[in-house]
């Protein structure tokens, strides 16, 4: 069973807090959202794959199975770990709440 903590899509203030400081520490309210997002099954979980050490990472999804390679998402390349966290947060926000995260 996935984490049950509800994410209120109107709390874009918390999303803004994440975007400003994706590595935390977060406020308690934001951390609960982040904890919900980081929970879940291993199969399909997002990870970052080092392409150039300390410089470039590609988003990927792990298989959750020994000996089965991860799947690279070649169009999602990041030059900072913070940007990668922001992108995944945005995807998960929409996945969980059903509402796209629009901050501008």
């Amino acid at each position: 069973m996935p984490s049950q903590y509800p994410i209120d899509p109107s709390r874009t203030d918390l999303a803004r807090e994440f975007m400003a400081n994706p590595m935390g520490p977060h406020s308690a309210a934001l951390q609960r959202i982040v904890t919900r997002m980081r929970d879940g099954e291993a199969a399909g979980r997002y990870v970052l794959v080092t392409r150039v050490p300390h410089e470039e990472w590609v988003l990927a999804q792990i298989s959750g199975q020994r000996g089965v390679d991860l799947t690279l998402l070649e169009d999602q390349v990041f030059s900072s770990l913070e940007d990668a966290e922001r992108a995944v947060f945005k995807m998960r926000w929409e996945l969980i709440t059903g509402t796209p995260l629009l901050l501008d």
Partner: protein
Amino acid sequence: MLDKKIAGYSDEISVAPGERIRFMVSCEPGVDRYQADIVRLISGDRQPDGPGYRDELLPTSVSGEYPGRTQETYYGSYAVVPDSPAFAALGSLSLQAAIFPTLPSLRRACLISKMDVDAGLGFALWTDPADGLVLQLGDGAGGQREFALGRPFVAREWYLVSATYDADSGEIRLRQELLDSYARDTSSGAASHSSDGSAAVGCDAPLLIAAASREEARGKPIGEMIFNGRIERPVVASRALEPGEIEALRSDSVPLALRSDVCAAWDFAQAIETDDIVDISPNRAHGTLINLPIRAVRGSNWTGDELSFRHAPDQYAAIHFVDDSLYDCEWDVDFELEVPADTPSGLYAARLTSGDQEDHITFIVRPPRDRATASLALLIPTASYMAYGNSRGGIEVGSELLANRLHVVSPEERYLNRHPEYGNSMYDDHNDGTGVCYSSRLRPLINIRPTHPWLWQLSADMHIVEWLEAQDIPFDVITDEDMHQDGVSLLERYACVMTCSHPEYYSTNMWDALHAFTQRGGRLMYMGGNGFYWRVAYRDDKPGAMEMRRTEDGSRSWASEPGEYYMAFTGEYGGLWWRAGRTPQSLVGNGFIAQGFDHSSYFRRTADSHDPRAAFIFEGIDDEIIGDFGLIGGGAAGLELDSASRAYGTPPHALTVATSEQHTDAYIRVNEDIGHMLLSIGGQDDPQVHADVVFFETPRGGAVFSTGSIGWSSALFHNHHDNNVSRMTRNVLDRFLDPAPFA
């Protein structure tokens, strides 16, 4: 390096000048040649803010180019019994065992086999995902005939299985019987088949338990179709036995009336501490276990009245086989080194390079066996390296809840995931979900490398090596295995022994040696966190192997089954040293209390720090805040934290000279210290979540200084060693090397 392609291992981990060490290397296709050199390791952390990688070439005959080749690894556990006259007269046949299949639906798996496949001679008993028990008999003409029971097994239940073949009548009988009883069970049953009685049951192939084999390598049959699960009291007989006779053979002796029919009856309750399996029939057709299947596990008749296999061996007559265990890769040697006589003690590696490919097969040159060559010894925690070696959790689970961020997968992790044959760490499960309780260093340990991007164990310990090199203080390097074998006499050659960042796994010999050292005037600097936590065992006849059981509680990725808390290697009670009455706090003044992996924190000086007894520690330091910087998580108080506790055994006179604070909510107290579950968990709410820097004097002028945090050593390099963590560490080291006794 987008893709790692080269890795190796050595036959020894610690060698003295004049001794030999051999290196085995395997390359994936594309690496046709590689350069090998022996180097002394000075520094490893390649982070942009880190000290970078540095080594120093040791001129040896090893330096040169070598051909790259792929070396095969045969893994998974099974037993081999050589062919013997015991099996010569086979015409009719009975096979039986109690079995506990853990992955019956995965694929067909072999319970017992003695088969010359090409000639169509012999027999094999299988579990099949759909058909349950299956008997194969040679047809004498290059083929096999198969007889199935037709009911699938339920996983993780005990069954008595038997198959008989009567050569006179041609009748085949199969039986599988659930030993527990469930309403609506459909997995028990029997079947009989008729045949013309022409099966060719005899052959000169070796007999295997838990595997079948078609070919040999390195002098052994290669195990295939390995059975995952437990097998108890397998028996081979030369007559089609009746159900009552089969039941009578579920015993630790062969009934007199059956002795002329039984070819072999293996009692796995005997010789549990070894690789031997003992045949209790008059034939004495003993066998050998390959790749460390798990012994000292509960059998089908375990009652729970006794918890140690030594107290009721009869209830531990099972062996748990798994298809992914490994003791020794047994690769061919690529090159070997005779350590030159004048080689200074240190941390060394066979450095392999090929284009952008590299590997560092790390080993230790200890001082000559009869003496020390410095006053300080750095104690390399090879037991803990073996426990963590080939940890697969990152790429397999990718947990974000430990570090509170996305997991970053390195090329090394993808390489390891491509090579399940290199075996697992003690943090992983076997393929059947059973926790990994044995490790070995006779295989590539991919993450135990000085430059591994996950700064943990060796790669984190390089911060200590780098700092010591920069201090220009001579030091010898010794290992857990040296201490285990040589005892306190090895340590007593030194004024001071310094640990690495995470010496978590300790054998009894190691604990005894280190404790005796502190009680005889030695000085111990414990430079990390979560040390002296799990109890492990070595086996003298199994070099490079180690056992551990994750019992009762403790921060752990799996848990041993009840009744399986005693280690097969030694019979010792496994698990936390605390549960054996030896707390880390009683040895070093602090012990594991909390962990977290997002942001590290800092220490604040305490009132105790102004005690004159602690004055030497803070010489030249005016700061109240210690270590608000570091290369892992940004602070010296981080990762795994140890605190002082009188209740857990911290000596009454110990001084807690600094305490960490303001840990994040990703830091959680260890479960063994939690009684009732309260809402106040996490570093912000739980005051127990903190590390203590502890100092205390020991008898005969000795002393102990404990940093209380794995993160401590990651702060040493900050500002090119000009910082208060480095200064404190240096102050303590200078005083600990000074022979003037402590009070």
